[in-house]
């Protein structure tokens, strides 16, 4: 439990430190913890947008196979007369991948900074007053969502783990047949359970994230300050209820062949 004394420079009493050479302002900004929190918030907003649109898009499965598969085609054909097929979709994916990578990089470097900031932990038990389950498990829920994301792509985009369904009659994974692939996947009960658990982790992450981003972005206007918590609850609830309904609908036979 020994900790080394830090050596410090002389006390000047003024801000007379020589001006250090500054990097390009965005990199200079990202060098600070506050700047990294801005990056967490901005990339978080981008990912929130994706999560919301993804959930709404998937609601199409309640309208039937053609609707959701047509919607998938529509995404591939976005702006087609102007841009070649799938280009706009790949641009959006590129943006999301960049946002996700920055979100994770900022989170990892801030976590390391925070662990360094308290190298010797409290030896007695802590009694937290305000910090809630969601805010204290952001790292764990973030890692769960990231691992789940990989599984999700391998299951429904690449088809690696979607080769056989619960019944042999379901047939193999078909690229582009979103509806069939979803049904084939969710008919496996353990997979549905995995989706439900991962979405609850996502909802927990969003509950703190949506509120927290306002603080990180410096948005605390008294006109809407009180609404930040309600917005977080509403957003997390809408996403979780929507996403969890899909595996339940398949298992209940509401969505199926």
């Amino acid at each position, binding site marked *: 439990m020994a900790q080394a004394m830090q050596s410090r420079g002389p006390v000047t009493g003024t*801000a007379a430190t020589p001006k250090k050479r500054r990097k390009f302002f965005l990199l200079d900004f990202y060098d600070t913890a506050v700047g990294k929190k801005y990056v967490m918030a901005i990339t978080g907003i981008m990912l929130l947008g994706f999560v919301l649109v993804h959930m709404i898009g998937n609601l199409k499965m309640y309208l039937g196979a053609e609707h959701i598969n047509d919607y998938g085609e529509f995404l591939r054909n976005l702006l087609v007369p102007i841009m070649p097929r799938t280009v706009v979709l790949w641009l959006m994916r590129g943006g999301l991948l960049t946002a996700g990578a920055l979100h994770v990089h900022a989170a990892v470097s801030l976590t390391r900074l925070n662990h360094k*900031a308290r190298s010797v932990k409290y030896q007695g038990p802590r009694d937290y007053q305000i910090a809630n389950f969601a*805010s204290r498990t952001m790292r764990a829920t973030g890692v769960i969502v990231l691992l789940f994301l990989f599984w999700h792509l391998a299951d429904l985009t690449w088809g690696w783990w979607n080769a056989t369904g619960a019944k042999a009659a379901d047939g193999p994974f078909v690229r582009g047949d979103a509806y069939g692939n979803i049904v084939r996947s969710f008919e496996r009960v353990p997979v549905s359970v995995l989706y439900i658990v991962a979405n609850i982790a996502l909802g927990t992450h969003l509950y703190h994230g949506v509120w927290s981003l306002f603080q990180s972005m410096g948005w605390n206007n008294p006109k809407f300050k009180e609404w930040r918590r309600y917005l977080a609850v509403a957003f997390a609830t809408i996403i979780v209820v929507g996403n969890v309904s899909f595996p339940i609908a398949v298992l209940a036979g509401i969505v199926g062949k």
Partner: protein
Amino acid sequence: MSNHLQNLNLKIWRQDGPADSGRFESYLVGSISDEASFLELLDVLNEQLIGEGQDAIAFDHDCREGICGTCSLMIDGQAHGPQRGTATCQLHMRKFASGDTIVVEPWRATAFPILKDLMVDRSPLDRIVEAGGFITAATGGAPDANIIPIPKPVADAAMDAAECIGCGACVAACPNGAANLFTAAKVSHLNLLPQGQAERWSRVEAMVETMDEYFGSCTNHGECEAACPKSISIDFIAMMHKDFRRAKVKNRTLISQI
């Protein structure tokens, strides 16, 4: 008419010096008035220890009326103990019951090395203030009152921030060891007022970057606000974040762009 608490078990952190590894030691205080403050409990215990020829427990204290920010102590896992909006010196024994076991630990942060027992070195907070917690003011005779008009809500907000006594409870309570509430209070109380405008952008930049050298980052738990003996709001943290962003993108080569 005061009541007395009997048989308090105290588990107190003892550490001989910065390089020592330290350990909890248990002490028994037989009787203490419920009107005694927590620091007076430690005084009574120290008298007892000195009487037994043992080393007294070192702890920080000064004004004992909640305005100096010298006392600290993590009491039962809460900075400044279980009472909201007060420092340890204003925490009274009536908040506890006979037979309680009370765990007392120093602030823990890499920036706050333990000097001895419950005493820590909080000078990194001074480094932050040195970086920008001042204004350029004309010297000479005191100016007339109200010569600079300041709207009442602005004066109130600046006063709320200026309440910070620099005790470091925000850092101690923060699960990340961040000093954002301290820094935000020191930045905001000057940045809100007309007298603070000349250095507004260089202040927030210098203070936040100095804070980064010693402390962790804010993840918006809100623990600091709950621990703060002056109940300073985390709204000031959002204000600091906003000013920091604006400072970073401002082109200060043009003086008129303040």
